């Protein structure tokens, strides 16, 4: 079953100036799809347009075959779409507990049960529930951002460059968590510049260039294809 389908999407910040120009992709249930592409390709714009944060001028977005194109951003978490922005993705002056608690109140989920589950998945967070999110290290902050997006038990979780600014070791830890999250039945869309790490956990990948999806294939195919690497993923060749 297709969890998320994007059809010929056009989106941008100013009317008449689309940044995303004809992006199409589909993610099967319980898959991890990596969305790759050079800096400035429009990956963030695409994912924000799906999340309802950037106006869509053409095309469609379907979440489990229900059209959600142009739906207000605040409706989508209620409909099963979780989103982790690249930066400023936790409420820095609330504690870990309050970050999760707030999401639970808003989404009207059984608080105790849900938070217990999330703390079991993220034991590092459980140990310091009272700590202000602003005090967390980069890796832990990213974990909290993921946990926050999971509070509403989304069917699809989208993340914008969760590896940004993290050491290779932390990237490994965060990505392992994503694999664990997928194992709980969540479909994942992972926007990344860190091609190697992303392809290592992804099932399939799409490459976005100048706002449109150019190549779609299994992660294995893409990882092996030197032309793809050279053409679209400039910095991929050197091991990072």
């Amino acid at each position, binding site marked *: 079953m297709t969890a998320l389908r994007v059809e010929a999407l056009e989106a941008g910040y100013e009317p008449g100036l689309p940044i995303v120009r004809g992006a199409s992709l589909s993610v099967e249930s319980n898959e991890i799809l990596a969305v790759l592409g050079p800096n400035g390709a429009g990956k963030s714009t695409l994912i924000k347009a799906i999340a309802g*944060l950037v106006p869509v001028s053409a095309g469609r977005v379907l979440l489990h075959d229900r059209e959600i194109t142009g739906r*207000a951003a605040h409706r*989508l978490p*209620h409909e099963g779409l979780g*989103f982790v922005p690249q930066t400023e993705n936790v*409420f820095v002056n609330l504690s870990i507990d309050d970050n999760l608690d*707030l999401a639970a109140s*808003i989404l009207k989920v059984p608080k105790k049960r849900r938070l217990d589950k999330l703390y079991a998945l993220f034991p590092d967070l459980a140990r310091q529930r009272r700590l202000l999110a602003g005090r967390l290290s980069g890796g832990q902050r990213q974990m909290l951002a993921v946990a926050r*997006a999971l509070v509403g038990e989304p069917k699809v979780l989208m993340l914008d460059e969760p590896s940004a600014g993290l050491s290779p070791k932390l990237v490994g830890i965060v990505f392992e968590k994503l694999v664990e999250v997928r194992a709980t039945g969540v479909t994942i869309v992972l926007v990344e510049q860190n091609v190697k790490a992303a392809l290592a956990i992804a099932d399939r990948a799409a490459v976005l260039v100048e706002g449109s999806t150019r190549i779609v294939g299994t992660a294995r195919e893409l990882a092996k294809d030197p032309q793809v690497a050279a053409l679209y993923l400039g910095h991929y060749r050197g091991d990072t």
Partner: protein
Amino acid sequence: MLQLIADGFVIGSVIALGAIGVTLVYSILRFANFAHGELLTWGAYLAWTALLGFAAVWGPMEPLGPFSFGWTLLASLGVAAIATAALALLVDLLLFRQLRRHGSAITLIMASFGAALVLRNLLQFIFGAVPEYYSREIQVAIRLVPRDVLGGLRITPDQLFVLGLTAVSVVGLHLFLTRTTLGKAMRATSINPQLAQVTGIDVDRVVRATWIIGAVLAAVAGVFSGLTVQLRPQLGLDLLLPLFAAAILGGIGSVYGAVAGGLIVGLAESLSVPIVGAEYRAATAFIVLIAILLIRPTGLFGERP
């Protein structure tokens, strides 16, 4: 001395309640609303109108116990709070909402100047420029401290009412912001509007709540001002500088800062009277404001740079 401090707290209560609205609107909508003072004036006059309405139906107001006012003023305060909230929502719908979509912060500020002008002139057109009073009852001031201790302290029952209801309002607002989902959503939106949205918070609803709370507190402050001083169309305009001084002194965006700032500005105004004379006490707020901006631009409770 004690007397000046007590008077300062009464003035400060009015300023604090008004400054909360300024700071809330700033933290959620990200602009300085120079029309906020007019919400105080409108609140005061709407309560006066309701009071006249009640008097027409039930006859003249009977004072409650030691107070200068009767229960109809309390009912009028309720009516004014609702009507002022409706007015604020209307101004937002017709003006600010349109500009939020495309305009910059400076457009919104200029628009708020325009809104203030329209609201003030409309009010003066409807109600006239002659000062009014809710009640002409003479009150017996209560002597709390004898004259030979620090100059003594006398306070009227109305002033005690103002101080008490201000405390209740601030505690109520605190509970709302910290205990209710909508209150927490407001705090979250003020910190990070985009993250609030992706967490599922309806920012439009938060904006409406902001106007309603700001306007209700403005109406209460306006009635307090009318009760302890008098009703004048310039009431809000004269309070505008103290409101902003208080909000900035407290750290704009901080509700508790606005309360502290309001009380400090009120005290400063009151204590300056023997030094500069009553006519110039309005300048005190301005001096306080300049001093803060020079010494600590982020205010007492301010976090953002």
